[in-house]
């Protein structure tokens, strides 16, 4: 039976791990290579690096981080943040990323997803959707949550599937950093609409939230940052908890 995945996400800035609270107020939380290794040894099913300020700054540091991490971690590594074009994707994959997540570039030009999934295969193309509720619908935000594209998140999700995305990483901007749980309504709506796996993100504050994301949000995988980073819970604890709730995980 296919297991639900737990993915610790490391927000990386200038080669160092930071924690994001609604994408501002950053704190240093250590070396990404070492942290990734600790997570993979501790049972993480995948590791995700998000290069959070990459759209604005020199991002060459991330290539070095990815290269070093891939020599030490033998679980899948997803890298996102500031991926602009096919060349960026190619570079990250060559450094050892297994999947690349595309956010702003996919909104600007959906052909990036179409072309990259054709060139590298859908298996390594993740489209990251930052969604924020405005009225009774969700809008897609870009540039690390700063700009509203005006696109409807549900329609955009479907379009990305059609364009060849292998997975969707859906982050609720309303919940990110709040620790009050995933936006279940958003996750459920998108996952029932598409046939590709959904990774739920944004808002995890306790282990029950992870279970909700999978059971109620129908997510194939759950991504979390702060509950793991500061030792509130270990990945193994999270897995044992999910297992006790009847959710299949790799233990």
């Amino acid at each position, binding site marked *: 039976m296919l*297991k639900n995945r737990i993915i610790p996400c490391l927000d990386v800035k200038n080669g160092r791990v930071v924690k994001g609270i609604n994408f501002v107020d950053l704190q240093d939380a250590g070396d990404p290579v070492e942290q990734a290794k600790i997570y993979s040894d501790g049972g993480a099913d995948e590791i995700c690096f998000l290069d959070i300020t990459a759209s604005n700054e020199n991002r060459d540091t991330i290539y070095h981080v990815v290269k070093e991490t891939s020599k030490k971690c*033998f679980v899948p590594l997803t890298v996102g943040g500031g991926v602009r074009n096919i060349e960026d994707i190619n570079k990250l994959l060559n450094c050892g990323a297994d999947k690349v997540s595309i956010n702003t570039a996919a909104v600007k030009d959906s052909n990036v997803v179409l072309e990259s999934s054709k060139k*590298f295969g859908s*298996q*390594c193309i993740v489209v990251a959707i930052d969604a924020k509720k405005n009225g009774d619908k969700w809008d897609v935000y870009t540039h690390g949550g700063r700009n509203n594209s005006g696109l409807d998140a549900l329609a955009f999700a479907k379009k990305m599937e059609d364009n060849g995305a292998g997975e969707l990483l859906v982050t609720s901007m309303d919940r990110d950093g709040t620790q009050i749980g995933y936006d279940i309504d958003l996750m459920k709506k998108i996952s029932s609409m598409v046939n590709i*796996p959904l990774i739920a993100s944004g808002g995890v504050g306790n282990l029950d939230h992870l279970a909700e994301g999978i059971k109620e949000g129908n997510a194939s995988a759950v991504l979390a940052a702060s509950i793991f980073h500061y030792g509130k819970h270990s990945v193994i604890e999270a897995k044992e908890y999910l297992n006790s709730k009847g959710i299949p995980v790799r233990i």
Partner: protein
Amino acid sequence: MKLSIVDYKSGNISSVINSFKEVANDKVNIEVTSDIKKIGSSDKVVLPGQGSFKSCIEALNNISGLVDELNEFAINKKKPLLGICVGLQMFADVGYEETETKGLGWISGKVSKIDNQGGKYKLPHIGWNEINIIKDSKIFKSIENNSHMYFVHSYEFIPTDKKVISATTNYSTKVVCSVEKENIFGTQFHPEKSDKTGLKLVDNFINL
């Protein structure tokens, strides 16, 4: 011992390279190459594969003499070869991803889309799944039945002769996830991304 990882410019093989380098001791010389002479003089060959069946076959054919050299290595000389993911799928006679494409024809069978029961199961089949070891394959030495391996694929290899199947995994159907035919080995899952169990399989292949 000389082991070649075939670099035929199709997809990302750095993870495969890293995993073999992690496991290999200094008696193993790992070469990442598309040079047919180097491949021909190897003791073992690893054939990775990412992207579509069609794009991988085209990429193999783009390197002059490579398919002939691989045929010579695996079929005539019967030296150990490990195919990973699409590398395994290419053993088939034919693949149906994008369009009908002729495979290497080493293990009779076809590669077709996983039947996801009309959308009941998500595709690609991504993540960790347990393998049911049904044949005592050398690459599974010291690997327990029901171990978890990492998968990411939408197409599956369906061999004609079921005796070549060494492991399956349960998804929407029983998906063939490992084959062994004499000197030819293949895994649909990614040992290079399957943590310690995957590295054990890499180690087993190196030590065949």
